[in-house]
């Protein structure tokens, strides 16, 4: 697959692009989240398919609308200490952005990508997640872009377009405006990308570490899982099932099946995920079967190999897709707790086998 840079022969940057065309170095164009997803796809990892409205698309949208100047004038002279004022201005700007229309070219591009995505998912108007993908260099402090600018279970072209605009407008939350003002950050150099990705219809989901978070043992993979969406696991609302897998051999070493009282599923009416009590007979059922555990661990191993370091991964088993093609990776980040620790070296430099045998004999083997 060609990367975006190679694709755009005439120096012209794409306005919309598929996730599989994104790479590690695509962050300025599609932000951290989308470039990392592209990276995973290209490493051979199954990720829910999707596309990104690029930062170039964002700039084109803002330029065409000509709202830049108007926003500037609203922001000029704004007293960011005045919370009421700040929220009022934020609301005005966001409303302004959300009511803008895309150019016909952009609209067609997005609609076309959405249609193709639906075909790929074998669904008429596939439900998607629309979320902002921040260009980390421009926006220090990851929390900055806000966490609420993720919209789930969005269906239909109009809804998709609308939520892309909402993601863009999230650049102008009161908090974001204040932050930039404090940092003396120039709004003109600011950019955002928006990812549109098939909703994983999770039967089971959770997180996976490619080391043992308890002791840093890199020969293990540890998986937490529960039925439904990952929220219940990530938020800690339930004690998830826990599986420990040998990274080298992919043997499942431990299975701890917990009592899982609730899970998250979609409410199709409100298009939001909501917590529901798990029927008692399912509460102590293993939420991830052995074959899935092994397949998932295999993916984890592959992801770690690709990034060359231990990883923290979000994953899901999709309800709609057949076994063998139903396990998806939603997100992969470098593991930081153990990886950033200074590792004690077990042996002294230049120690021979003899030295080690001697020093170990002197220490002995702990019995108690």
């Amino acid at each position: 697959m060609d990367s975006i840079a190679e694709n755009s022969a005439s120096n012209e940057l794409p306005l919309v692009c598929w996730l599989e065309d994104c790479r590690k170095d695509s962050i300025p164009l599609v932000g951290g989240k989308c470039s990392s997803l592209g990276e995973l796809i290209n490493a051979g990892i199954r990720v829910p398919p999707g596309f990104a409205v690029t930062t170039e698309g964002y700039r084109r949208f803002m330029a065409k609308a000509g709202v830049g100047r108007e926003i500037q004038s609203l922001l000029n002279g704004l007293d960011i200490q005045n919370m009421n004022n700040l929220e009022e201005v934020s609301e005005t700007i966001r409303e302004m952005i959300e009511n803008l229309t895309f150019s016909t070219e952009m609209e067609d591009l997005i609609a076309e990508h959405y249609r193709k995505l639906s075909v790929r998912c074998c669904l008429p108007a596939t439900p998607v997640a629309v979320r902002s993908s921040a260009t980390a260099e421009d926006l220090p402090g990851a929390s900055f872009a806000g966490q609420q600018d993720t919209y789930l279970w969005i269906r239909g072209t109009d809804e998709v377009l609308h939520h892309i605009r909402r993601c863009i407008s999230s650049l102008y939350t009161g908090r974001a405006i204040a932050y930039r003002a404090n940092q003396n950050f120039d709004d003109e150099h600011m950019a955002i990308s928006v990812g549109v990705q098939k909703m994983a219809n999770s039967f089971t989901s959770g997180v996976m570490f490619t080391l043992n978070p308890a002791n840093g043992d890199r020969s293990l993979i540890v998986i937490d899982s529960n039925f439904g969406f990952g929220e219940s696991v990530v938020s800690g609302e339930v004690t998830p099932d826990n599986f420990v897998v040998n990274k080298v051999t992919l043997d499942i070493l431990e299975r701890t099946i917990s009592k899982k009282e609730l899970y998250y599923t979609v409410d199709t009416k409100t298009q939001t995920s909501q917590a529901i009590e798990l029927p008692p007979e399912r509460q102590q059922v293993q939420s991830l079967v052995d074959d899935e555990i092994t397949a998932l661990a295999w993916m984890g191993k592959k992801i770690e190999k690709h990034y060359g370091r231990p990883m923290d991964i979000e994953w899901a088993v999709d309800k709609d897709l057949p076994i063998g093609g139903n396990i998806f990776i939603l997100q992969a980040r470098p593991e930081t707790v153990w990886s950033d620790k200074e590792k004690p070296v077990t042996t002294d430099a230049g120690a021979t086998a003899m030295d080690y045998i001697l020093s170990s004999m002197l220490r002995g083997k702990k019995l108690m």
Partner: protein
Amino acid sequence: MKFPSPHEIKDIPGTEGWERMYPYQYKFSTDDPERKAHEEESFWFYDGLHYPEPLYPFDTIWDEAWYLALSQFNNRIFQIPPVRGVDHRIINGYVYISPVAVKDPEEIGRRVPNFMERAGYYYKNWDALEAKWKVKTEATIKELEELQIPHLPELEELSVVTDAVGESKGYHLIKAYDDLINLGIKCWQYHFEFLNLGYAAYVFFLDFVQKQFPSIPQQRVTQMISGIDVIMFRSDDELKKLAKKAIDLGVDEAITSSQEWLEVTAAVKALPNGQEWLACHEEARYPWFYISSGTGWSHKDRSWNDDLNIPLMGIATYIKKLKEGVDIERPLEQIRAERDRITAEYRDLIESEEDRKTFDELLSTSRTVFPYVENHLFYIEHWFHSVFWGKIREVAAIMKEHGLIEDIEDIWYLRRDEIKQGLWDVVTAWATGVKPRGTSVWPPEIAWRKGVMEKFHAWSAPAALGTAPEVIQEPFTIVLWGVTNNSLADWAAVQDVSDPDSITELKGFAASPGIVEGRARVCRSANEIRDLQEGEILVSPTTSPSWAPAFAKIKACVTDVGGVMSHAAIVCREYGLPAIVGTGHATKIIKTGMKLRIDGSSGIVTIER
């Protein structure tokens, strides 16, 4: 962890005076305060690996042999800094052992340079020294094989006079017995020449890898040193060769026609190519059928050469497999490929360059020592011992002839110094022309000892006695008996259960990975493996190389004793079968026919009740 005091263990009623069946220094005693304190403060554990049954007085020879040999190499030859030897005791016929630590840090420091120089020399020159070992050991075995046990004639041959020999058969008999014993003790000297260091290399490689990967299963470490050709598989390979040869020569149906070797020989002889096959069989017997049906430590462990029905069973199993089109070879290439993959992957996960270097060095040392650690078993425990037990039976025949014992197998109830004494009684009486005094001394004593042994058998030996230390530094203790906090706690837990029929789960060492379900077959000895059905799970006290044919039939293996380097563990890894070893009590709790689930990765046996 506290275990019963060794001085609290009571005699079994009716066995009072049993101590005279063993050397006096084996008794736990309270009359010497210093010795009493040492015994109370030490940690004694039952050596069930070598002595699944109470020890017969004569068989104490090998216990004394290794009491001396292991300890001298540890303490007086290589001077392992923090540990002296391994102390021994016997209680109600069962052997308890205890590693003796060096407590004074300054003394440990003084021992270090000696250890580095001496052990270092062996590690550095391992292969060359091992080659010398083989020559020495084979020469010792040859001497044993050639040793004649003379009968006492009515009248010495005329040549004694004409050649002016100047010695009688009476003297020769005494000397032959002394030589026999001395050869045995010598072979056991060689037994430990390399073994302590071999185990140390292995133990601390394991320790190093576990420091890198705290949760690595031990079996993954042993897998890194698998796939190396060792003699242990040779006897089994000979059976496979004979099975193929039988099919090639068209004698296979005659071989599978009966389980009795004599009948099979007759049937094979009658066939055109029968003699050729029998010649191959005869050739394979020396030395490869000198393989004991047990550990070789007990006189009861007969070799294939003593009972040709056992290898016959193996040959028949392989013929059947071959005819079904099953590949009977161990998948060595596959094992090596998997070994190399696993080794490389773990190595890649090691963070620092120095640690990777140490890993490489320790791995290479472990692979160097591994063949010895396995091969010595064939030379000493199997080959030497099998011939040795035969020679002692020849001595027994003479004692029987002169009325000191009623049956050849009665000799095992005598200590080896009592036999020497008895032989003096025999030769002096023979020379003088009178009746030996022992004819009225030994038969009643032996009858009493038989009763005592029966009571010993029925007694359940506690897993450990005394006070468990915080750390164990003695390499044998760590590897062979798998004494860890966990295993002892697990054993203790099972002992605490009042109703063994309620136990649904047993824990042991995860020795070879894989999960299977199946029916149990409890086999207490190699003879019982003829009852094994295809696809059953073998449950046994321990296994030895002569059990090899069993592994072609079974789905998985569970043993009472043994660590991840025990025979069952190694063979199962080579055959890709799940194994759980060192469960402590599997043969007592599991009954033939029970449905089991074996998880060779976690070491858990689940019993379906």
